[in-house]
């Protein structure tokens, strides 16, 4: 009886994760979005009596 082939020939792709540029850009995007919201709400508060 033939043994089931266990050896897999698919090669695991290892992504190059050394560049964090995209990560930095996306966290700054969210960071500035939060700041804009915060400042907007704060000025709304200051503008009203």
């Amino acid at each position, binding site marked *: 009886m033939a043994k089931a082939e266990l050896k897999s020939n698919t090669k695991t792709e290892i992504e190059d994760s050394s560049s964090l*540029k995209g990560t*930095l850009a996306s966290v700054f995007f969210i960071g500035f979005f939060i700041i804009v919201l915060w400042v907007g709400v704060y000025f709304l508060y200051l503008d009203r*009596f």
Partner: protein
Amino acid sequence: MHVHKYEKIWLIFGITTLIVFLSVVGVSAFYAGNQPPSCLTVIDPEKVDSTAPFNEPGLKKVEGKDWDYELVFVAQAFAYTPGDVEVPLGAKVKVIATSKDVIHGFEVAGTNINMMVEPGYISEHITTFDKTGEYLILCNEYCGAGHHMMMSKIKVVE
């Protein structure tokens, strides 16, 4: 420990932002003197009608204080006393409110005046009415069957 340059940038940015936001709150509280509307001033809720200033609700001119007027409101299910009031434009007013029965809300729609009115406590808010118009006061704490009809009005007039 190795920390990536970008991580350092982000951490500095995040911490700086946090410090700025918290400083604004701190300056507001300790320099500008902002405090919660109900700041431990107490009253006997059963004797509201005979306790000053709630024995005469409405707008009153005061002398020798940081504000020009005191606007006294009594809240009870399901109305405010006074039912509507006129305030001169530009007046610095201390709004003082309390409740005779359950917790009510006191929200002047479209303004920063928004406080809980609790039986046994006096809620206060100091503000300058610098825009003319008619402002609706609403109860925003569910107080019973007539909650949705509980309202009053402030007219800011020249």
